[in-house]
Structure formats: structure tokens, C-alpha cells
């Protein structure tokens, strides 16, 4: 088994709960002698296989692909978001803890005026739920204003709608914070394009090569004295190519 397979099969085990729930000792005396890397600290790589786990609705998938490819289009500087794997990235993030809102405090109620007070909107809905309602509403908006699917609109028109969402001049539906939904998609597409390829996006490290980020390196002592110089370091990722 190579390194990638080892990581993948381990994370599958964890996902199915085949590793004993928790044999973690809660009372400790002495320094632990088992120095193996803890299972739950291994990365959880993107699930491959070419099939979507959360973005299973065909229209929603097309809509979000169209949005992502306007946010990061294909051009002279490199591939588009979806070409770089950002949809696979998003799907696997939405299937994972992030999509489940596993870290959020979700006790109600959400009081009126809460978002003004915090100055940054906060949600009881999970990111997965927000994508589901948001993409549906975006599609309905396109059908209503243009009589066509968002994915089938001209790029200029798609940009116009996205810009309206960004500025807050377009509201997709009363119960959707359109501006915040735009920001969620923008954040996630950037994450896909610039995170380690192990998570499904940033294929061939295109995002890192675009800006010159050397990736998952851990020692720059050799270069630290070359202050202000162009280093042209090759990017490397957490997982070697097969």
C-alpha cells in the first residue's frame, strides 16, 4: 500500500466507525509510550470515485459549477475552479464535519438584530443546508428573471447576477441572506483552489503555482538568509502523486 492508499483506507475506517469508538484513556499517569500518529489526526482526504455525495441534485450541481467557474474562470493564468477539482472539494467538504456544521453552536433562538450586533452574520443552518436552499433559490431567480437555467446564461449575465449578490442589490429569497451565501461560495471556491490537493481541489497545485506558494514544506532554514530574493521553489503537497 502506498502512502495515499494508507491514508485513504484509514480515513474510511474512521468514517465507518470501524476503529473502536474511543479507547482513549481518560486517566493518565506517566508519559504515553505509544507514539503512533493518532488516527483522528490523519487528514481526511476527498472521497474519490467520480460520484457526488452531497451535490447529488443535477441542477444544483450544474448551478454551483457555473458559479465556481465564474468566481475562478479558466484563462491564461490557469484552469477554472471545476477543472482544478473545486467541485469535488466542495462535495467532500459538505459531506464532512464542515458541511454538517459540526463545530457550530446551533441552539436557538436566533434573535432579530443578532447579525447587526455581531456585525458578521451567523447561522443555525448548516453549510450543507445553506447550499441546498441557496442553489435552489439562485436557480429559481434565473428562471424568473431570464427564463433559463443559471448554468445556461451567458458569462456576462452570470457575472451580473453574482455581482448583485455580492453587493446585496439582489435578494434571492426572503429567508436567504444572499450576500452571506455569495461569501460562503467565494470562500469555499478559494479554499478548493488553494488548499492541499489531498482535499480534491488545487489539482497539480495550480493555485499554489499561480502565486508561488511552495506548499507543504516544513523547513526554510536554507532559504531564510536569501532575504528579498526570488527563490522559485517548486511546490509540494502532503500527498505524492501516484
Amino acid at each position, binding site marked *: 500500500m502506498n502512502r495515499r492508499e494508507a491514508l485513504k483506507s484509514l480515513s474510511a475506517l474512521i468514517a465507518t466507525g470501524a476503529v473502536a469508538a*474511543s479507547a*482513549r*484513556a*481518560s*486517566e*493518565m*499517569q506517566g*508519559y*504515553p509510550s*505509544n*507514539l503512533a*500518529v*493518532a488516527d483522528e*489526526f*490523519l*487528514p481526511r482526504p476527498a472521497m474519490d470515485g467520480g460520484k457526488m455525495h452531497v451535490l447529488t441534485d443535477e441542477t444544483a450541481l450544474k448551478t454551483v459549477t457555473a458559479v465556481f467557474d*465564474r*468566481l*475562478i*474562470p479558466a484563462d491564461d*493564468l*490557469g484552469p477554472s475552479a471545476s477543472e482544478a477539482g473545486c467541485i469535488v472539494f466542495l462535495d467532500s467538504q459538505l459531506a464532512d464535519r464542515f458541511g454538517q456544521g459540526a*463545530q*457550530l*453552536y*446551533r*441552539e436557538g433562538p*436566533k*434573535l432579530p438584530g*443578532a447579525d447587526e*450586533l*455581531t*456585525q*458578521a452574520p*451567523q*447561522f443555525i443552518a448548516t453549510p450543507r443546508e445553506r447550499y441546498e436552499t441557496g442553489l435552489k433559490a439562485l436557480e429559481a431567480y434565473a428562471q424568473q428573471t431570464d427564463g433559463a437555467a443559471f448554468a445556461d446564461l451567458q458569462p456576462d449575465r452570470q457575472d451580473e447576477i*453574482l455581482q448583485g449578490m455580492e453587493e446585496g442589490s439582489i435578494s434571492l429569497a426572503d429567508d436567504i441572506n444572499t450576500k452571506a451565501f455569495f461569501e460562503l461560495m*467565494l470562500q469555499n*471556491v*478559494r*479554499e478548493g483552489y*488553494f*488548499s*492541499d490537493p*489531498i482535499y480534491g481541489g488545487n489539482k497539480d497545485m495550480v493555485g499554489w503555482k499561480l*502565486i*508561488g*506558494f511552495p506548499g*507543504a*514544506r*516544513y*523547513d*526554510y*532554514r536554507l532559504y531564510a*538568509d*536569501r*532575504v*528579498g*530574493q526570488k527563490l522559485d521553489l517548486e511546490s509540494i503537497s*502532503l500527498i505524492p502523486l501516484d
Partner: protein
Amino acid sequence: MTTNSKADVIVVGLGWAGSLMAEELTRAGLNVVAIDRGPWIDTSTHTPPAVDPDELRWGIRKELFSPPKDNTLTFRNTLDQTAVPQRDFGIFELGGGVGGAGFHWAGMAWRFNPYDFEIRSKTIERYGIDRAEDGELQLQDWGITYDELEPFYDRWERIAGISGKAGNLNGEKIEGGNVLEGPRSRDYPTPPLKTLRSMEVFNEATERMGYHPFTIPVANISQAYVNPLGVSMGACSYCGFCLGFGCGNFSKSSPQACIFPALMRRSNFRLLTESCVTRVNKAPDGQTVTGVTYVDAHGKEHVQEGDIVCITAFQIDSTRLMLLSGIGQPYDPRDQSGVVGRNFSFQTVSGVDMWIEGEQMNPFIGAGGLGSQIDDFNADNFDHSDLDFLHGAGMLTLARDGMPISKANKLPQGSPRWGSGFKQAYKDHYQTYTTIFNQGSSMPIKHGYLDLDPNYKDKFGQPLLRLTYDYSQSDRNMAKFTMDRSIEIAKEMGAQHITPFNFADKPFTTSIIASDHVIGGTPMGADPRTSVVNPYLQSWDCHNLFICSASVFPMNSGYNPTETVGALAIRTAQAIHQQYIQNPGALVKV
């Protein structure tokens, strides 16, 4: 409910404060049990170099932190508002495992300025009573001076292996160090890190302007080192996966890297992990405490009895435990009566983002705390007679990281945020970006306090903590003043694009991360009417209860807090085994 065998000392929370106290107390021969709500995490088993350099997981998803789901609070600006919960990560980036936030911190290692500890007396002495009592501020001295704390600062720097250069050795000013720092008895144990490009540009500009730049002392240590506990550390590799991350090299000082290898091997030390303390139990007469109640990972409740209890659970949890346990009178902002929850303060931050065309910053080479700073506008290092504020800010530039997801937000004003224009702008500016961050002080105010929320509860059904706070006018004026100075410096640095920022020109919020440094709630002091603990961090109400975390600071300085927490922890632990054990009772009589 089960009851464990009694301990001499119970330590609630094994972060920097808890592990320093446990180390000192076990070495003195006491039986110590530490209880931490997080799981065991360590360098080689959890954040080795094969796992650590992963921005998405640690920097963006913040998987090392304790999630808001488990630990959050509610917040409002003013008394007439209803507080709302902080649902997503905000300014509370608490530690998720043992070691607390000390495992994923950045590592700037500061002593506070002598002015801080006597802020009320010294302000009155230099500027008169009207400046100290402007109707809004609630200034109070700490009940301890810089000189009294100096030996303990020194001890902490030795344990942590801090890299830096002295600027004031016993009163003698030394060029290249921070000449505006308080006098220190000896130099740092390891030399400063290298000067990287952003620092070089900052140093040259500020020197031309007549200021006194120096390399920030850090817990990202510059060379191999063995500390006084016999624990060895490795040299920082400038990996840049530091703030929010563990360290795979044993080079970021933390409870794990500096203390656990010694502490865990002591037979008189026991650690309970994944066990959350829900209250400190009072004796029937209310004069002492008997131990703590905690809930284990399976939801089972236990009692741990002990002769002494030390609350070392980070600022918010230390304060909350006092309120949940009903020890000490809660503070009432309407008439400033009571004490528990008072003097909440934060960090008042402003600065500039800037882009210097043609520069090659190589931002990915960096370390969590690395940067250059000037203290010319910090503390009382400059004359405030004609200014409309007190104190100031450490003004610093960073050589911390070049993380590609988060840096995508750092583009000059007017740059497209998406589309081909974004790709081009990011490509053009990734190498040219740098910043000046004014880490400003925060003065306590009458209406800034912590109490229990009447509406929202945690997973155990206990009320969340509620924070009521907004910046004082003095702090707002300070942030504006230092922002203006940072614009001048950015121009001198040659920046073509400058975007000033000032978190204090809007109301305070817990959602937008200006800083992680939350302060106060159980302030220390010499007067029980305005403090929760005495200068030995001993509860005025129950003499066998001690609290050590930034909750005991009566205000915040223009620096990060951890070294001061660490120095106070060592001092308190020594007072316990050198004085208190021999003669249990109040260490300070009033």
C-alpha cells in the same frame, strides 16, 4: 456519581498556567491531579511534520480549537441589549486539547511594561486624577510591581527557551534590543530569529524616523536548547504553519514541548483528560472549597476532592467557574458593586495593510511570532499630556506566514475579489504584501463585564457566560492615533498601496477577530472591594482557592498576555508551597 481519592492540589485546566503550577507543586512534593476537558494531544502523535502543514484543516477549519458548539458565550455591547451567542469561531480560539491555547498559539513572548502594573497610581502621578477617573475608565493597580514579578518572568523565559535580545539589562540600555522595556536581570536564553524581508524594510523606515525597532522576542526558538526541567527543544525551521497550528519540530514553546515530558513522569502527578469541571464545591461554612465536580467523556459526573484548588482554565472559563460556583459577589455595572466578572478588557487594534511593488517578501518563510516592533507609542513611553487617551500600542510588522487561502483577502483596494482579475491581482501582490499591526492596550471600563446569560445554555445545561463590552473613548482615540502613525511608517517603507484598518472605529464584536486576547473577570489587587483575588492570586473569599489566567489582569497592555500569565503562575505556585502549606490561611491580610 463517584468520588476519587483526595489530592493535595487540584489543577483545573492544563494549559500554560496549569502545567507551570503543577510542575512547581509536584517538584515540591505535593500530590497534584490536573483535570482538563480536552483530550491528550502531543507533538509526535498529533502534529508531526506530515500532518501539520495543512492550512485548510488547522488554519481555516480550526480543528485544533475547542469548537463553539462545546464552548462559547453570548455577547452584547450595552446593558439594554439582549446578548446573542457567538455561533461560529470568533475571538475565542480556545485550546481543544490539553496544553490549551498554548499548543496552537503564535508565540510572541512579552513582559508587560512597569507602567501597566501601577497604571492607576502612575497615571495620577503624571497626569492627575481627572485622567484616571474620566467617568468611564475603571483603572486599578495590580497589587504587584514589575520588579516583584521580574524573577518569575525570567524563570518562565528559561522554561520556554525564548529567543530574543535584551534591550534593558539591569537599567543599561542595549542597542538592538527593546530599549523601552522594563529592566531585566539577564538576557534571553536563546538569540533572536533571523531578520526577514518585511522586518528589514520596517526596521530601516522606523530607524530613519527616529524610532527604536527590535526583533520581537518569541517562543519559536532559534536553536537547540535544554530547559531547566531537562526538556530539550529543536530549532524553528521557519515553516510558517504556526499560528493556529501545532509545531512538528518541538520548537514552538508549549506545555507539551517544555513541561509535559518532565511533569508526566512524576509519580505524584495524575491527569484526567476529557473531563470538564462544572463547579468548584464550597465547604458548608463557605470559607474554603472542598474540591470540584466534573463530567467525564461518557457524561458521568464525578467529585474530586482536594486541599487546594487552582483554577487555570483560561480567562473566560476561569471567570465562568467562579460564577457557576457562587464564589465571590458578582459584579453589578450599575453601581460597580461586587467583583466577579469585572474589568473585562480586550486588545484595541488598528494598523495598515500595505503593498510595496517590486518586493519579494517570500511570506511563506516565517514563524508565528516573528516580526519587528517599535514600542515608541506603547505604555507610557511617550507624553500623553496633550493627548486624549492613555497607554498605546506595540506597533509591529509580521514575518509569520504566506498561507494562500487566507492571504487571498489581502489585496489592494479596488482589486477584483473574483474572476480573472482576481487571479491576476493575487499573482501580482502575493509577494508584495506586508502589514503593520498595532496591538493596542485596553483600559477597563465600568460597563465592561462578564456574568451568566439568562437565555442560552451549554451542552451540560449550564448557562453560557455573557459578555457586555464596547471600547472606551480613550481606547478609540488611541487606536486612531496609532493608526495614523502606522500610515506614516507605511509611506516611509515605500508602500504604493495602503489600506488602514481600525477595529475600534465600530462597536466591539466577538465575531470579527481583531485579537484573541480577552482579559479580566477575576481581577487581582490589594483591595477586596475591587478585586477577586489578592496579589498571590488567592481568592479573598475561600483561602484554599487560587485562580491563574488572564482573568486576573485588571487591564490589558499593548502586548500579548501569555508570559505574564506564566510568570504569575510560577509566583503563585511558589507562594503555595513556600508559605501557604505551612500556614493555611489568607496570604494577605486587610
